[in-house]
Each structure stands twice: as structure tokens, then as C-alpha cells.
């Protein structure tokens, strides 16, 4: 872009027969080729092959036979698939939606100019992000064990509540897994919102104050609209991430993970079909369905979240 004209002027030293421009082009293609080579091998080829597999019946050993749309039919008629889909959506919403509110509030507080110990709060709130999903799931699996004396149940008992079977009840598992997701990611999103808040020029607020805008008005008409791209971004990543939940439920439930359905997610359903039941065709069909769901939901959520500031502005 910037350098084109300049490169054109430099056809002076021609050592080998090639012109400088041709050499530059060859270099450029050479430099971007490693990505495309690796992508074709471990990205494109598997994706296309998955698509192909989804229309075939195959256990990995005997010859593949064509199955038409049968795999999709099998998956879509399987109650467990719908259970997995609803589990994934419920855990996804419970785990990520509250992050939006809490994250923005935390970022707002961390951005207050009068705040002391800013750095301390930032570092501690961000810290959960450095733990691995497996570590988080293991810590939470001890915290939320079925045992009446487990720490989570002990805390409930302080409030006079009954103990919960966190690993076998319909909602206990979902709440526990949502909390893991929330705990690990809320600091991460806070930091992104904080970066967003810091990118808003201070004089906008000064001008608004002079015009007599109150704090809540400034929040509505300046902060939220300008934070919009950052919100859209986190909503996009949260949606995509939530639909790919695998490590948390698998590790949290340990032995029972694939034999129970309270916390079976779509990726777990896919994994089970592929690597426990050797039903590569239906597993691939599930993968294709997952792709469609991810693209659709990510698009819808991104569209909705990018509307946040717009509505506000229209009302003014």
C-alpha cells in the first residue's frame, strides 16, 4: 500500500535476470506460503473431509458407504443431541451474559481517576484467566462436590439452605459449570472494557459536563456508544467460546462425564460419537451442524450487541 511507488523506483540494481518488482512479489508469496501450506493440511483439508464424512457412514475400519442426509437425520432425531444443544445454550447464557454487566461495572470502577491501588485490583481480577480450564474445572469439582460438607454446600448451609447434588442434579451441574466459565473469563472481559473506556477521549466528558449532561446521561450517550465495538467483540468471542465448551464439563464430572446427560455439551456429544462410538459420519454431521449454529448465533449476537449504542442515540 504505502510502499508501492517507492518500490517501483528501485529497479536499478539487476543482478539476477529478475526485476526488483518480480523478486519482491516472489518473496511475498514465499513469505505468506507457510501459513497457507499448514492451513491446507490441518485446516482446510480436515474441514472439507468432515463435510464429506457427514454424508457417509463410516466406523473408521470398514469401507465408507454413502448415507445421503441420513447422518443429519439421525443426529436431529436424537433426543440427546437436543439435550446437548439446550445444555450448551443454558450454560453458555448463564456463564457469559452476567459477565457483560459485571465486566462493564468493574471496568468502570477501575477507570475512576480517584481510585487507589488500581494496579492491584486490575492484576487480581485478571488472575483467574491464567489458570487452565482443566485446573479451574478440578478446583470447582472439589468445591462443588456432592458431599454435604463440600465448601459450596457448607456456604449454602450458612444461609439455611439445603445441600445440592452439584454433580448429579439437572441444575446443580449447570450452575457449577456456568460459575467456572464466569470466574475464569470475567476479568478478561473487564480488561477489554477497561481498554475501551481508556480509549474514550476525556474532553468528550468535559464538553458534556459543560453542556450540563448528568453522569447517567454521559454513561448513556458517551460511554456505552463508544464502548460498543468492545462489547460486540466480547459478545462475539463469548458466543463462539460458549458453544465450544468441552474441558469444563468433561473434567468436572470426571468418570461420569460421558454417561450422564445433565451437562453434556455439543462438543462432548460430537466427541462421544467419534471417539467412543466410532460413528464418524454422525459425529461429522454434528460438527457441520455446530458450525452452522456458531456462525448463526455469532452473527445474531454481534448484530444485537452492535445495536446497543444505536438505540440510545436514536432516543435522543
Amino acid at each position: 500500500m504505502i510502499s508501492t511507488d517507492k518500490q517501483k523506483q528501485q529497479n536499478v540494481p539487476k543482478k539476477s535476470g529478475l526485476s526488483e518488482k518480480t523478486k519482491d512479489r516472489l518473496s511475498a508469496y514465499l513469505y505468506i506460503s507457510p501459513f497457507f501450506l499448514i492451513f491446507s493440511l490441518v485446516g482446510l483439508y480436515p474441514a472439507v473431509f468432515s463435510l464429506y464424512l457427514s454424508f457417509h457412514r463410516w466406523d473408521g475400519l470398514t469401507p465408507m458407504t454413502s448415507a445421503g442426509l441420513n447422518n443429519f437425520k439421525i443426529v436431529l432425531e436424537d433426543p440427546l443431541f437436543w439435550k446437548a444443544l439446550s445444555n450448551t445454550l443454558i450454560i453458555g447464557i448463564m456463564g457469559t451474559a452476567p459477565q457483560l454487566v459485571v465486566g462493564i461495572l468493574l471496568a468502570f470502577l477501575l477507570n475512576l481517576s480517584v481510585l487507589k491501588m488500581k494496579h492491584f485490583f486490575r492484576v487480581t481480577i485478571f488472575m483467574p484467566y491464567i489458570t487452565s480450564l482443566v485446573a479451574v474445572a478440578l478446583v470447582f469439582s472439589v468445591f462443588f462436590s456432592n458431599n454435604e460438607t463440600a465448601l459450596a454446600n457448607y456456604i449454602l448451609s450458612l444461609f439455611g439452605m439445603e445441600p445440592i447434588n452439584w454433580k448429579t442434579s439437572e441444575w446443580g451441574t449447570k450452575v457449577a459449570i456456568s460459575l467456572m466459565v464466569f470466574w475464569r473469563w470475567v476479568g478478561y472481559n473487564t480488561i477489554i472494557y477497561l481498554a475501551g473506556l481508556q480509549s474514550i477521549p476525556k474532553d468528550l466528558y468535559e464538553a458534556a459536563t459543560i453542556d450540563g449532561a448528568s453522569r447517567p446521561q454521559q454513561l448513556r450517550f458517551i460511554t456505552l456508544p463508544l464502548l460498543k465495538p468492545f462489547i460486540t467483540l466480547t459478545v462475539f468471542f463469548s458466543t463462539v467460546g460458549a458453544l465450544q465448551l468441552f474441558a469444563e464439563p468433561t473434567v468436572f464430572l470426571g468418570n461420569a462425564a460421558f454417561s450422564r446427560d445433565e451437562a453434556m455439551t455439543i462438543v462432548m456429544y460430537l466427541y462421544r460419537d467419534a471417539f467412543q462410538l466410532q460413528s464418524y459420519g454422525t459425529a461429522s454431521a454434528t460438527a457441520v451442524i455446530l458450525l452452522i449454529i456458531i456462525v448463526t448465533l455469532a452473527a445474531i449476537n454481534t448484530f444485537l450487541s452492535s445495536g446497543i449504542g444505536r438505540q440510545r442515540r436514536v432516543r435522543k
Partner: protein
Amino acid sequence: MSAVGRKKITGGSVFVYGFLSLAAFFAIFPFYWMLVMATKPSAAYNSIPPALVPGGLLVENFQKVMDKIPFFQAMLNTLIICLAATLVVLFISSLAGYAFAKFSFPGKNVFFVAILLTMVIPPQLGLIPQYLLVAKADLLDTLSGAMILFFLNPLGIFLMRQYISQSVPDELMEAAKLDGCSNFKIYRSIILPIVLPAFATLGIIVFTAVWGEFLWQFTVLRNPDSYTIQVALATLTATSNIDFGMVMSGVFWSTVPLIIVFLLFNRLFISSITEGSVK
């Protein structure tokens, strides 16, 4: 007034500090509790009131972890996979970023958009063929098989292109060209030194992502000697009678190195997140 500079304790500041302290407590507590449990017998887990002060079984519990899983081997495996993936991604991304930032060639925008589009493909889509591919290449249970997927990092190319087009002056490249430098020599002696700070950012993003990776490793690594730490830890609860002290000890000691590195370089970690996702 005599109270100049003294803080007024208002309802607002009580809320601000109260809320932030509560958030900090929730963020930190699991780390502390990890330590407590790692030093207690499994039975302490059933005590009322719950154990909240570290006990004396630090060494014993860790001994049990080592009886159960090859802890250091798994940490070493993970480290090798992470370092290899990080180095490969840094090399590929900076080279491609250099091409996109400083060269003009037919199809440049198409290629760049194609790279960004690859980010949309969910990693699970190709899981089965990827597994078959690795199995066919006889790479199951090997570190190469476990790392190969992570060589692909479109975000890295995006970040490097941004960084190189902003911080490498064209004049510098022209001068080098007039001196007869080849394009690759320019990459080695001019681009590389300039992008080192961006390497830190991208390196952290790649390293932490690969460190925490589970699904792929869980799929291709079945032999305990090839386990990464995540897969090894996951096996700790795959028994019916779980020793919680042992499990927490494993989790704790696998997290300690990360905590230390994070506390040393937290500014870098935090800025890598904003640079990696924003822009």
C-alpha cells in the same frame, strides 16, 4: 479547612472499594483454597467448619501425585509443545506480516481476507480428519502430533502486519535495499529486531492458549508418557474414589509456575490481551 487532602468517606467510595475488594476476593480465593487443600489430608475436605488454613502435607500429597501421574514429564511435554508452537507461530506470522505490510503483490487483499476468514472455522469441525491425519502419519502419542494444530495462527499474522506497518519505516528498508540487502536479509537484520516487543505480546497469547489446550491433546495423547499436564491432571479425577488433597496438589503445582511468571510480567500479560483482541 483543615481536612484538605484527607479522604472523605462517602457512600460512593464505600461501594467502589467494597465491590472491587469483593471481586478481588472471589478472583483470588480459589488460588488460596488450592493451596489449603494441597496441604491437607483428603479427610479435611469433610471437616466442619471447612479447612481454611494450610496444613502440613505439602510433600506427602505431591508424592501421591507423582505416584499417579508422571508430573514432571507432563510439565516438560507441555513446555516443549508450547515453546515449539510459539516459535513456529512467531516465525510464520512475522514473515507473513512482513509480506503483507511491506510488499505489494497481486491478490494481496484476497489472501489477507482469506487468512482472517480462517479464524471463523471452529476447531472442532475438522477434529476427526485431523485425528485420522495424525494417526496415519503415525504421530499419535507424540509431541509433534500434539503441537501441529497450533502452528496455525491467523491472529498472529494480523498482529504482525499491524505492528510492522506501523513501526518499520520504509526509508530504512529502502536504504537497506540500496546497500544490496536481499528481502530475507532485511527480514533478519531489520524487521526481526524491531518486532521483538510484538513477539512478547504474541508469544504470551500463543503460549498461554497452547498451555491450556485440552480437547486436541485429550484426543491424540493416550499414553501417560506423552501426556501434557492438562491431560494428566484430568486423569486424576477419572477414578471413583478421589483423593482431593492429591488432586489439589497436582493442580496447585501445575499452576504455581504460571502464577510466578504472571506476577513477574503481569503488565505484558494484560496488554497482550487488549492488543490481541482489540484493534
